[in-house]
């Protein structure tokens, strides 16, 4: 098909709705494997918008490309956990077997090779995406086998020989992913969770009562920020508006977090039930599940669950025969942007815009999706709501601590014997978790992923909860032989890659942080670099526009605080005043070749004296 017909078909599928630009671009990307100049012009013409708006989206989301990609695109996760698990060797094996480097596409257009940030499979690392298909627990040998099959023309789906436990083997998912549920708590992962009892209980109450019950339960946002969910519902309801929206945030992009993947796989009904109750509480008729592109393999299954719910009268008009409440959910697929996990950026993305955060105030509860009051809530928070409705706020509040009610799903990965998902009551000590996870020699735990907190052995007595260690769920465990600065550097690389670039401090400052960390890693650091990093970090944190920028310096600041001796052993007091990063010999190599002579100053054979 030529570009014009591809674009025409894509736009037609979404009624030439400008707000569905991401879905339209996905159609074109899948059909043509890129969105070129002509494609951008055509989309703009078809939607009555401007080409530069389309280009703005294509160049913002990492799963879109303006240059042709292969029929098969392999995206190897290069998160630090995956690299510790051997992703680099896997990468080399892929390069060797496919004959192309990272960022390249084979000459015949058959395949492309790329790196990608965490894809939510840290407990079965190294992992990669092959188009939408997930492959896990890779080794160089396995990678070579996969590459051979791909070269022989196998489709990504044909690469899957074994499927995982639970719904991972469901025909609509069919993934080689394991759930790795290590500990089931009473709230979410309990084997026997009744269906739709929460919804029935909720519909028997007034919306205000529902929001009140959630508030009484003390449910706080599970994404990490911990805003009281009940208050969010009440606030959104309080703003007079003709429409309201309920959005489930399944853009689980924080490296080392994968518990929502398990909920989406095993508790889809519970999630949709929770969304329905929350929608009832705020008076929303429309809901959106924002699914990160890395979880596209779950989409068909989730669509099927939604369909079954519609058929059963659990979604659509007149839910449960209530005669007064209708609600439906659509799935919005992301396109590769961590920043879209930030609620206002997520809303931008749902509106078919670049996934940049909006100015706040006004907050989404007042002016969100399309300018209407919108509640954006984490998948896990929404899953808690039906349980609260069913069992009561007292039951829920009995788990956990005074300020942190209920249980928390933790995604444990890294140097431990039992990586996977743990549902624990709030208040659990890190050392208790490490014991359960069979971490033999833990030296560093990154609580809440790169934007969370890095702690060392001295802090393992601390507890999980909003009053102490608040976390979206990531628990990255590193043993003593890991290099702290390598971890910090990887996190900074992640923040730089994922910064939307809107504000100066995050866009530029995080690049400067990394430059200095790398200088220290290369043995060229000085003691004054520590105060430089501290001051730069303060400016970035104080002046950034959203949480990403505020968090970007954290790995640096926390690691300097937790491991001062590591830094002290690397930085030197230089007396000669020279910049060790400057390499005069390398700087002269090109001139030597052009002039076909050696240096009179810097080549000893020619009497060079300076060093």
């Amino acid at each position, binding site marked *: 098909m030529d570009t014009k017909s591809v674009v025409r078909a894509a736009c037609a599928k979404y009624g030439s709705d400008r707000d569905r630009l991401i879905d339209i671009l996905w159609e074109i990307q899948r059909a043509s494997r890129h969105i070129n100049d002509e494609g951008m012009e055509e989309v703009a013409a078809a939607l009555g918008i401007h080409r*530069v708006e389309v280009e703005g989206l294509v160049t913002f989301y990492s799963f879109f490309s303006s240059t042709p990609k292969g029929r098969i695109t392999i995206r190897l996760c290069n998160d630090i956990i995956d690299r510790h698990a051997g992703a680099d060797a896997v990468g080399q094996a892929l390069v060797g077997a496919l004959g192309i480097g990272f960022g390249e596409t084979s000459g015949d257009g058959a395949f492309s090779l790329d790196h990608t940030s965490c894809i939510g499979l840290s407990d079965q690392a190294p992992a990669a995406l092959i188009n939408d298909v997930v492959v896990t627990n890779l080794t160089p040998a396995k990678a070579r086998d996969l590459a051979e099959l791909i070269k022989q023309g196998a489709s990504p789906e044909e690469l899957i020989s074994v499927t995982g436990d639970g719904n991972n083997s469901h025909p609509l998912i069919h993934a080689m992913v394991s759930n790795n549920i290590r500990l089931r708590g009473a709230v979410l992962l309990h084997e026997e969770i009744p269906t739709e009892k929460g919804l029935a209980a909720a519909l028997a109450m007034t919306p205000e009562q529902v929001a009140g019950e959630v508030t009484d339960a003390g449910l706080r946002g599970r994404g990490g920020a911990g805003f009281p969910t009940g208050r969010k519902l009440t606030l959104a309801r309080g703003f007079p508006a003709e429409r309201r929206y309920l959005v489930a945030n399944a853009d689980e992009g924080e490296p080392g977090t994968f518990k929502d993947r398990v909920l989406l796989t095993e508790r889809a009904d519970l999630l949709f039930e929770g969304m329905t109750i929350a929608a009832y509480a705020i008076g929303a008729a429309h809901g959106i599940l924002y699914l990160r592109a890395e979880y596209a393999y779950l989409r068909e299954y989730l669509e099927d669950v939604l369909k079954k719910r519609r058929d059963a009268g659990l979604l659509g008009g007149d839910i449960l025969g209530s005669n007064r409440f209708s609600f439906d959910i659509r799935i919005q697929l992301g396109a590769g942007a961590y920043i879209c996990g930030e609620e206002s950026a997520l809303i931008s993305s749902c509106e078919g815009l670049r996934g940049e955060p909006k100015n706040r*105030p006004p907050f989404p509860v007042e002016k969100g999706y399309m300018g209407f009051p919108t509640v954006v809530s984490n998948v896990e928070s929404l899953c808690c709501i039906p349980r609260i409705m069913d069992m009561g706020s007292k039951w829920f509040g009995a788990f956990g601590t005074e300020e942190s009610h209920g249980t928390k799903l933790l995604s444990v990965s890294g140097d431990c014997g039992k990586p996977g998902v743990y549902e624990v009551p709030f208040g659990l000590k890190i050392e208790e978790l490490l014991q359960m996870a069979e971490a033999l020699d833990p030296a560093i735990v990154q609580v809440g992923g790169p934007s969370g907190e890095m702690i060392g052995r001295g802090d393992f007595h601390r507890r999980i909860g909003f009053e102490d260690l608040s976390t979206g769920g990531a628990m990255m465990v590193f043993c003593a032989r890991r290099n702290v600065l390598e971890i910090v550097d990887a996190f900074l690389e992640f923040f730089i890659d994922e910064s939307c670039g809107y*504000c*100066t*401090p995050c*866009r*530029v*400052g995080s690049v*400067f942080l990394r430059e200095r960390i790398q200088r220290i890693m290369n043995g060229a650091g000085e003691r004054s670099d520590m105060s430089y990093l501290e001051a730069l970090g303060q400016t970035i944190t104080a002046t950034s*526009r959203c949480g990403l920028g505020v968090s970007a310096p954290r790995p640096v600041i926390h690691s300097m605080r937790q491991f001062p001796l590591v830094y002290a052993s690397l930085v030197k007091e230089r007396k000669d005043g020279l910049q060790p990063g400057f390499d005069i010999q390398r700087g002269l190599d090109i001139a030597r070749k052009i002039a076909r002579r050696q240096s009179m100053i810097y080549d000893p054979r020619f009497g060079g004296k300076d060093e």
Partner: protein
Amino acid sequence: MSRHHESSGQEDSAARISFTIDGETCAAIAGQTIMEAADGAGVYIPRLCDEEGLDPQGSCRVCTVKVNGRPVASCVHPVGAGDVVENDTAEIRGWRRDLVRMLFHEGNHLCPICEASGRCELQAMGHRFETFEADLFPYLQPVRPVDASHPDIMLDTNRCIRCGRCIRASRDLDGKHVFGYVGRGINKRVGVNGIDLSHTDIDLDDMAAALETCPVGCIIRKRLGFFSPIGRRLFDMTPPGTAIQKRKGNSK
């Protein structure tokens, strides 16, 4: 479209409130941003991405102030009754200097050869926050191609500070869409609505191409450079903020 219309529309019904900037009591109209209120009171808050007549964007962060102890961008943050605003403190000056420096080091800002020198707002901010200690930030030295395709207008994104003023001017004032953001993170920059500038409908009368719109030397008019002698250029005579600070004198 502009916030100034919005606030003037509400003026009759809106309540007058008071707040303080650096200890000085100022009046404001509810619904104004801190920057609007400060401008009205004759207190200048340094800024780069904001320009009178355009919707505020809040991206350069140079206008960061502390409100009741919390840093916010004053161009987009609404003022509240009784707010305690800190503007000209050593801490905030330090942040602003860092931000201005970041922009200098992110692009290629070679003042001695730049046509915008003397009327460049980034340069003026540099002059304002300059210190004599050697700066430690690295220079990123981008090498993006210059777009000289258009007969009258040139675009050098190596000097772009991502303020988006051209984008908003083209969209909201000219009713066109010549510019837009492309790329993300450190690769985010201003793109044009076509394969290059000559394929857009920009022309010299556009506000997007007006000298006041681009605060730096990214959008340049061809055949128009160095038109005022050094010492007599816009910011040689009246550095940014002069007009606002004069208001204070008048109101007293």
